[in-house]
């Protein structure tokens, strides 16, 4: 792990990360898988259990910390990024994770989210996107598709959804990724990469709420359809997908289009090669906006990772510099420093 955080001596197992609390999600909820993948991954991120903190807001997803045998804080709706920010700044030695939902992070918590991204606060944000408010029983969320019929939109919603990756990129997040509750291996790899990233890591996890929005991502997870609808991004590899891995993404100007590399007209060399390390945000913005076009597959994987100093590094460095220059503060001096007189 790229962090300045203590590493483990003893190898832990997934079970070590499981708390003694009953898991209270609905049977069949995608959150179970996310929990399992985190628990499976965490022994490998090289951080001691006691140095990990999970912070969450309110929502089904935000119950997550209760089930992790680490430090945890189930806070109030939307504020997890802000709480995590204060925790990380004050305790750079901790590995700070945020578990949140599409409502928690993108609705009420939107401002804290974009500011965390902007400041490159070294926290990892896993957003469980089920495109619905689960805990409050099925109102539409800012990621619900337009026209959605829910309890608060009996005639269909009229607002356009956020594109979470686009919003994160617009706010300059240094790590933007997407994964699926139903693709355990992929999800594990992304969690691991988020852990390794030094800076704000935003991971959108498409998650099925089988009670209020069942099948929202069926196209991407059903055996028959997923190969044709999911594009797995891999660094420095051409963007290929499809049942026979014959489909590729080609760039037509800024617009990605689908080509068939076996149609005689195209070849793999026409296919756009993924580069997650591109510092310029445009490439990742194109990837983020692929979901605007129903003809394109949905990319999963790491859209981009950029390394730049984090906020906590900055503040630590500044304190060191000032202290070097002025010496460690002496309180009595502070009091007596200006315009004093004696009686």
């Amino acid at each position, binding site marked *: 792990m790229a962090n300045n955080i203590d590493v483990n001596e003893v190898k832990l197992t997934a079970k070590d990360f499981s*708390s003694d*609390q009953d898991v209270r999600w609905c049977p069949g909820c995608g959150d179970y898988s996310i929990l399992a993948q985190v628990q499976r991954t965490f022994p490998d991120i090289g951080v*001691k*259990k*006691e*140095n*990990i*903190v999970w*912070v969450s807001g*309110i929502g089904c997803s935000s119950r997550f*910390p*209760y089930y992790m*045998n*680490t*430090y*945890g*804080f*189930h*806070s*109030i709706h939307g*504020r997890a990024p*802000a*709480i*995590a*920010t*204060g*925790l*990380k*700044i*004050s*305790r750079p*030695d*901790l590995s700070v994770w945020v578990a949140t939902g599409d409502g928690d992070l993108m609705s009420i918590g939107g*401002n*804290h989210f974009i*500011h965390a991204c902007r400041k490159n606060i070294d926290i990892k944000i896993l957003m469980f996107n089920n495109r619905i408010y689960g805990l409050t029983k099925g109102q539409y969320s800012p990621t619900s598709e337009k026209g959605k019929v829910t309890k608060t939109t009996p005639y269909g919603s009229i607002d356009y959804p956020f594109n979470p990756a686009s919003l994160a990129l617009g706010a300059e997040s240094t790590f933007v990724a997407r994964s699926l509750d139903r693709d355990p291996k992929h999800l594990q790899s992304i969690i691991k990469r988020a852990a390794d990233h030094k800076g704000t890591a935003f991971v959108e996890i498409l998650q099925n709420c089988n009670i209020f929005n069942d099948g929202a991502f069926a196209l991407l997870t059903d055996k028959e359809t997923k190969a044709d609808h999911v594009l797995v991004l891999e660094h420095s590899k051409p963007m290929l997908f499809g049942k026979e891995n014959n489909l590729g993404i080609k760039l037509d100007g800024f617009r990605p289009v689908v080509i068939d590399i076996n149609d005689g007209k195209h070849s793999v060399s026409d296919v756009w090669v993924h580069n997650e390390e591109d510092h310029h945000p445009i490439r990742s913005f194109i990837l983020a906006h692929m979901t605007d076009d129903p003809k394109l597959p949905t990319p999963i994987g790491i859209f981009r990772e950029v390394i730049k100093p984090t906020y906590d590094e900055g*503040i630590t460095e*500044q*304190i060191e510099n*000032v*202290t070097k*220059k*002025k*010496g*460690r*503060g002496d*309180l*009595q001096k*502070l*009091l*007596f420093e*200006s*315009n*004093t*007189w*004696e*009686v």
Partner: protein
Amino acid sequence: MEETKSNGKTVQSLNDVTVMFAGDSGDGMQLTGTQFSNTTALVGNDLSTLPDYPAEIRAPAGTLYGVSGFQLHFSSSDIHTPGDSPDVLVAMNPAALKVNLKNIKEHALIIVNTDSFDPKNLKIAKYDSNPLDDGTLEGFHVIHVPITSLTTNALRDTNLSIKEITRSKNFFALGMMYWLYNRPVEPTIEWIKQKFAKNPDIAAANEAVLKAGYYFGDQTELFTTRYSVESANLPKGVYRNISGNEATAIGLVTASELSGLPLFLGSYPITPASEILQYLSTYKNYGVKTFQAEDEISGIASAIGASFGGSLAITTTSGPGLALKAEAIGLAVMTELPLVIINVQRGGPSTGLPTKTEQADLLQAMYGRNGEAPVAVLAASTPSDCFHMAIEASRIALNFMTPVILLTDGYIANGAEPWKMPLIEELEKIEVKFATEVEGFFPYSRNEKLSRPWAKPGTPGLEHRIGGLEKANITGNVSHDPDNHDLMCKLRTEKIQRIQNDIPELEVDGPSKGDVLVLGWGGTYGSIREAVDRVRKSGYKVSQAHLKYINPFPKNTREVLNNFKHILIPEINLGQLARIIRSEFLLPVIQLNQVRGLPIKSVDIQNKILEILGGNNGK
């Protein structure tokens, strides 16, 4: 008032003087007032100040709403307010004269910058004729000084621009006032040299103008009398002049030192609280971390995060910001994390009068949250008291694992007074013990203070989860059990109540039994104290008690109150403490409420006391 002669002028000795420096917001009146205060402190007077500036950053020149004022009361004895009404007004322009005229004493001395009384400025100040010669100022002792021309004169040989030259005219006024009140110019010259170190031309000019003003006082025939105010008989010690916001900031750093915990401040700028954030952001080498958040909610949320991580966590704000923090304060109540919330009260409701003072956030501090969510509520009484109360707030937060709201207000935050500084080594340490033992650790077990253990992340074996849902007693697990909820609501309330055991009793100044007790809280201390002093001087008996701990009240509060026939509560609100006292003690209280964005005048309190005592006003 003794009179002596010196240098051909009468020297009159005064006990105390209230001076008002007033001018355009661009005229540097705040600086002038501050310099005069500092020098006045150095010569050993007691003093109290009231800066008053417009909400506009630089209101258009000459307008009435653009007037910036600095009121300063200094004395050879103990004083407590910036003075009800100025004895002396320095008016740099017509608007400054107009705005302040209704407030100065009968026969007050008015020094005007005659250069600025031109038709344009008179018109902007909405004067139909020139008040300097239309009889408006009859009864006052008016001294006409062409300050701008004299300043220009003094600098005619420099290379400065007209703009730069006129900008230094405040130093002329200051120099003149130094002469008039017999104060040395050297401290200000020192200050000028430091401040303008990088700009020696400006430094030289300001010094020249300052001296020019001083000598002008000496040589002009306009002044026939010079005044002296002897140094006050203050307790021995090292003093500095300090404002409430600075005292708060230093108090917090001190609490950090006393507790051995790193200081974290999460805050969002808002008048008049921003200065605390500003001061603390300069203390990087004390290990202080300041975080300017995106809004007030993030300010408190980040502090809650830092508190969970084991810092002494602070958030600072003013009225509307406190409203925004309400939900998160509830979270800190439920999670029982230490947190100091400092609210520098200003005029409300809503955006209200953002640069004015008020005491109208007391009920918000007490009750402004959903559910039964008790927190400790403290209030500082004077600028320097902010230092002590910041430490007290931190101590209570850390000892009782609770959010504490410390109320100050715009008046004491911006106002300044001489402060006898403590020796840090003599201050009591704040004991903090983090949980480390795995054996028997339960996040919601309690000690005799009913305080729960603080186990910070990084401690092996104490991994635990907290949150805003109701907690099971002892284990801290989520619980929906009806009886547990009832118990926990009562335990949280009782915990706050037990703070009574750890705070000083309410002191009564004056007889502990009698007809009238004047009960106050927060920033009205000075006004009440001065009123009480004056009433006593006229031979009446009256007592004063001042609440700095409001939730809980000091243990003996009921006893104190029951010993008086009448309780007068002056407040800069519509009766918020009165409401609490009435419900808590079922006592009828007499209220004196003014919501004018200004400190209550001592004279109004004085009159009210006399009215209650049955004397005719002022005897």
